[in-house]
Structures are given as C-alpha cells and as structure tokens.
C-alpha cells in the first residue's frame, strides 16, 4: 500500500502546475463555460495548446502521437489541470473514443485519427442515446444499411456533449434489425461535416448549450469507418462507457477543491443578518463534511485510476466513482447556495452576484450530472449486479 505518486508522476504534475501558472487557463477563449463536471469548460484553443505539450495523449503509444507513458500519469496531469480549472471539457470525453480506437481500431484508423487527436486537431462527441433509447441502449433505432462500400445512416441521436462543436462523432447504429437486439448494433466514426448530418445544440436548464441533438439523413459512411466488428458494437460501447464514466467524473475532487477554498474564503470574510458566517456552527460542520467527502471522492477516484493503470476492469468501480462524484457535486452546489444565502439567486454580472454566480450555475447544471452518462439508478444497478453479484431482476 502506497498513496504516494511516483517521481515521474510528481514531475509531470509540477510541469503542469508550472504551465498553468505561466499560461493561465482562464486566459484561453472558451466555447462552453465550466460545466461543473470538475474539469472546466470547453476550449478548442486550450485543447490545441495541450496537444502541443503532448498532454492529450500521454498514455497512447508513441507511434500514434502519444507519449507512451502511463494512464496514471495521464490522470495526474488531468487532475492538476482540473485544480486550476483548466478547460478540459473538449477533449476529456474524447478519451473514451480514443481508448476505443486504441483497443478496437484498425491500424488504418489508428494512424488516421490518433495523431490528430493527440495534437488536439479534432474533437469528438459520442452519439449513443436516442429519444427512445436512453438507459435502454438496446432500443437503438438509428439504422445503418450497407450500400456498396458505404453504410448509409438514418436516425436521431440526443444528448451527446458538445456535438455541435465536435469534428467527429462515435455513433451507435443498428446494422442487423433481424438479430437479437443486443447483437445487431455497430459503432461508426462519423465526420460531422458529412452531408446529411444536422446538429442542433440543446439549451439546458442552466442556460448553457453543452448538449446537442444530431439528425442523420442518408449519411454515407465509408466501411473503413466502422469501428470494431460489425454487429459487435454493444460490448465495444460498454467498454467505452466504463472509461467515459471514469474520465467524465474522476476529477470532481480536484475541481471542487477550488470551490471549497472559495467558499471558505467567503465565509471567513462575510456576514449575513448581522452575524459573522464563520461563527455559524452549522455552516462549519457542513463545510467540513464537504471537505471530507471530497477526500473520500479523491480516494475512490485514485483507486479506479490505479486499477485502470494496471489494465484492470473498472466496471462497477467506475459506477462508484460516478455516483459519488455526481451526488457530491450536487451537495456542494447546494451547500454553496446555503453559504451565499438569498443573494445567490442573482446570476447576472452585477456586483450583487456572489462568487461570480458560479454556484448558482452549478446548482442548476449539476442537477443533470446524475442523469447524463447513465443515471444514478443505472449505476446503482451496476454496482449491485457486478460489484456484489446480486441476481438480475
């Protein structure tokens, strides 16, 4: 047992910290603001800069543009960036696609995509859910019909993060409508500029445009962009989702540490109703609890990262990471608003808005985290079935 990071990991962390101090992440333009996942906003410019540093593909093989280092090093870099609220939204979700290509891609696909991704030249979305297929992916209705050297795709996808800003998208579609539901699905790599692809951003209840819906009408996809085997898309997607659950949520503790620090500073400096907030025992107790939960979250995240680093499965561990991070994120936003009081409802840029209206935004946005990427209910099912071996219902 050893909870130290290795010298290499610490060295990389120091480099990243140094980078963040010299090139402050908040100075890069953002296409989507920090969405409360714990790892900042969406910035093509910043992603590109990370690509230049080689930090988008730390764990990929060198021959595909990676640094050939470990997943733990990749994690440490992301953690340090998250603490500095660097915008990682644009590329972090792409990790799942990248892992899919590394594992299931053809040599040609690896050569085509991975170096570009490593440079930050192309950003990805993941198009799985449909209006009639949310938790129930087996119900996927988007069709892909073979036609000569192409597949022709028709259908609709909903909720892919940043699809309106992404260059490429991983799409799950039904290739064999006659096979049992689970055995007729395939995954495709789709160029978002392909004719027939229409993307509309969705305005969420926090007022942000981070999700989108994708309409596919007779979209022709060359066969070489089939990822993995035909009709074997589902296991591939489940594998990717495991990573998606992890990379999408594993930085909560790092990003929210800053939130906690800001709340502590606010409490120490503020009064309400004529009383110093720092004398409020209930707030003190609540903030301490958040601090502890962030530490618990950190350990849960590290454990999953450690498993992933060894190439182990994190089927249910990633669900633990996600449930804990998402519900903690909601608690932090809730506590933030408790600290800030009634004035927290002001979400403009006036001097009356507290702590740059961040918590007000998070309060609304984080509502969605326990729904997106598999609801907390689905995650708990996974923990019960795969983590504890309980029988299926």
């Amino acid at each position, binding site marked *: 047992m050893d909870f130290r990071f290795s010298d290499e990991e610490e060295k990389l962390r120091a480099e990243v910290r140094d980078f963040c101090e010299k090139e402050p992440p908040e100075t890069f333009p953002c296409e989507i603001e920090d969405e409360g996942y714990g790892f900042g906003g969406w910035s093509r410019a910043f992603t590109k800069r990370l690509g230049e540093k080689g930090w988008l593909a730390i764990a990929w093989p060198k021959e595909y543009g990676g640094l050939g280092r470990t997943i733990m090093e990749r994690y440490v870099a992301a953690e340090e960036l998250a603490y500095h609220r660097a915008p990682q939204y644009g590329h972090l979700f792409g990790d799942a696609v990248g892992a899919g290509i590394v594992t299931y891609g053809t040599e040609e696909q690896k050569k085509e995509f991975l170096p570009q991704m490593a440079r930050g030249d192309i950003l990805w979305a993941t198009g799985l*859910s449909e209006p*009639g*297929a*949310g*938790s*129930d992916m*087996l*119900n996927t209705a988007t069709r892909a019909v073979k036609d000569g050297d192409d597949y022709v795709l028709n259908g609709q996808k*909903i*909720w892919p993060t940043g699809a309106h800003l992404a260059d490429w998208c991983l799409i799950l579609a039904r290739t064999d409508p006659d096979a049992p539901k689970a055995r007729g699905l395939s995954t495709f790599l789709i160029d978002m500029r392909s004719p027939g692809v229409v993307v509309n951003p*969705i*305005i*969420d*209840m926090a*007022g942000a445009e981070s*999700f989108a819906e994708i309409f596919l009408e007779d979209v022709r996809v060359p066969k070489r962009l089939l990822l993995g085997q035909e009709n074997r898309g589902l296991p591939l997607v489940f594998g990717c989702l495991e990573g998606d659950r992890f990379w999408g949520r594993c930085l909560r503790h790092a990003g929210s540490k800053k939130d906690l620090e800001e709340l502590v500073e606010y409490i120490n400096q*503020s*009064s*309400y*109703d*004529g009383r110093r907030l720092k004398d409020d025992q*209930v707030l003190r107790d609540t903030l301490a609890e958040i601090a502890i939960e962030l530490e618990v979250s950190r350990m849960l995240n590290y454990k999953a990262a450690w498993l992933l680093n060894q190439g182990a499965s994190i089927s249910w561990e990633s669900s633990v990471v996600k449930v804990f991070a998402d519900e903690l994120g*909601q608690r932090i936003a809730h506590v933030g*608003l*408790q600290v800030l*009081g*009634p*004035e*927290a*409802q*002001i*979400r*403009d840029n*006036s001097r*009356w808005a507290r702590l740059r209206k961040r918590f*007000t935004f998070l*309060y*609304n946005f984080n*509502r*969605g985290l*326990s*729904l*997106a990427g598999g*609801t*907390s*209910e689905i995650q*708990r099912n996974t923990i019960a079935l795969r983590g504890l071996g309980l029988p299926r219902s």
Partner: protein
Amino acid sequence: MDFSFSEEQEMLRKIARDFLATECPKDLVRQMARDEKGFTDDLWNKMAELGWMGLPVPEKYGGIEGSFLDVVVLLEEMGRGALPGPFFSSLLGTLAVLHFGSDRQKEDLLPKIARGDLVLTVAISEPGVGYQTSALQCEAVADGSDYVINGTKLLVENAHVADVVVCAVRTRDASGGQGTSLLLVDGKDPSISLTPLETIAGDKQFHVNFNGVRAPQSSVLGEVNKGHEYLEELLALGAVAKCAEMVGAAQAAMDLTTDYVKERVQFDHPIGSLQSIQHHCANMKIDLEGMRYITYLAAWKASEGLPFRKEAAMAKAWASDACIRITNLAHQCHGAIGFCEDHDLPLYSKRAKASEWAFGGARFHRQFVAQEIGL
C-alpha cells in the same frame, strides 16, 4: 376536524385551474421569464376581471372579502400554473394595507387594488440582510411633515411595475423616538432608482436605491416605530402564502412525473413500474402530503385569526426543504429530458429554489422554532 375545502373553495380552485391552463400556457411562462416586464397586461386584466386582486379585500372596498384560506387556494393554483407576474408581491402589499392600514389608507388604496388598477410590492431585504428585521439599515428620518428615506433594498420583486412600495425602514423622529416602521412609498418617485437583477427563477427582482425619497407622515402604516411587530406578522403571512404556492408547484412537479413515468418506456416497460422510480415517487408523495397539511394548518390558523407564527415557521421550514427534495426527485425520474430549458419541469425546480429563500429559508425558521420549543 375537517380536511376538506368548502364547495366555494373547490369552485375557486376549479376556475383558477381552468383559467390558468388556458390563459397561461407554459410557453408564455417561459417567454415571460425572458421578458423585461415579466407579464402581459392581457393576463393581468383578465385576472382582475375574475376579481382575484380583490379576493382578500372587504366588500365595502369593492373586494370579494374572501378568507386567507381562500387566498391560499388561489395561490396554490398559481403555483401549480407557474403564474408569472406581480400578483404575489402585490398581494403581500395588499395584506399589509389590510392588516395595518388606517381607514383612510384602505379607502384610498383597496378599491383600486381590487379593480387591478394598483400594483403594490414590499421592500424588506437589503444587501447582507434577509429577514432578520432587527438588522435592517434602510432609514427614514423625520423632516417636517415628511420622512426622508435613504438606503438600499435588494431582491424587491416587481419594483418596475409597482405603484406603491411597502417599505420597511428604521424611523427616527425629531423627538428622538425610533423604531421600525412600514411606509407606503410611491413606486414612481424619481428619487427611487431601480436596477433589474437576473435571477435563477426568471422572476423580476430589483436592486432598489432610495435616494432621499420623501414620504408624508400619512404614509406610515399603522403606528410609527411599532412596525417591528407588523413586519413579523407580514413576513409570517408571506411565508404561509409562499408555502401555498410551493404546494401547488410541488403538486405540478409530482403530476408531471407520474404522467411521465407511466408513459416513458425503457426495457420494454414503463419506467414507473421500476421499483426505484416507484420509491422516488412515493417519497415525493410523502413529502407533498407533509408540506400540504403543515401549510394548511398554518393557513387555517392565520385565516381564523389564531396565533400562527410558530406554525408559519414550521410550514416554511418544512416546505422549503420538501419542495427541493420533490423537484430533485422529479428531475431524477425524468432523466435528461427534464433537464432541457424548454421542458416544464425546470420552471418548478428553479422556482423551488427561489421560494426556499423567500421569507426565510429552512434554517432561518428553525431558529425561531427552536426558541418556541423552549431552547
């Protein structure tokens, strides 16, 4: 013991529900959240025709002379319909005039209020002060036959359309007398400056500066320097009224949810057949029942003229938390679709947050309850 509403109340409920379903569709509600004014004259005038602004006003002033419980029935439906506009804030001002105003003030204001010709609001909270009335700073100093008001009020609802602002101030007389008073201030006075605030619920709240606003001594509600008690009572009435609105909102969130989970099919079954969804819904129902009857208890006591502050505090403390729990579970049951800005659910969940704060949140009221139970 009677948990049922009267026939008249049930009729009022039905009329209100039908009216709001027709005249206040959710698209209008969303549009009004983005609109600068926040409501339409058309809707306001139609509500006036139904006599709603005059519901609590005595008949002799042109009102319907309904009880507070009648008002609660109406507010519940307004919460259910997510009604935008200044009805609620104007009602609070109306209640202040009704409860503490002189005959002359009533004669002057209530008929216009009952006709819908006069919009009121109340200005209490200030930067850094919510409803801890002893900590308020805004001041009115006697100067001849006037008071001169200076200070800042924050989170004043619908100040942009208020003809009369019921303003809580510290008063200071030339004779050395001081205390808290409620003043009726002309909402259009040029010495008042307004700044709109963008808020979580899309309601219209304002930062209001009183820059030497003059109000005659006749504008004092009730006795001067005795306003502390009035204010506490007004806040308690406001808290119960807000609870009623929240009960309606929570019921709407509950109905949206049960409808959705009966229809939404995943894994070949409606998700409402899944035990986790059923238990979420059951928890919503338990909380809804709880907030409903603790609210009715406080409302009934207020309506009967019985002491009701403790019950008001209990109701607001409970409802503030319960309504958040209910809308949270509603979101959890709806999945991603309820997270879209153009879905109806966020109308309720965002208002639940604003309502939690209005007239004091759960902890604020529990502090009062702690004293009441002898701590």
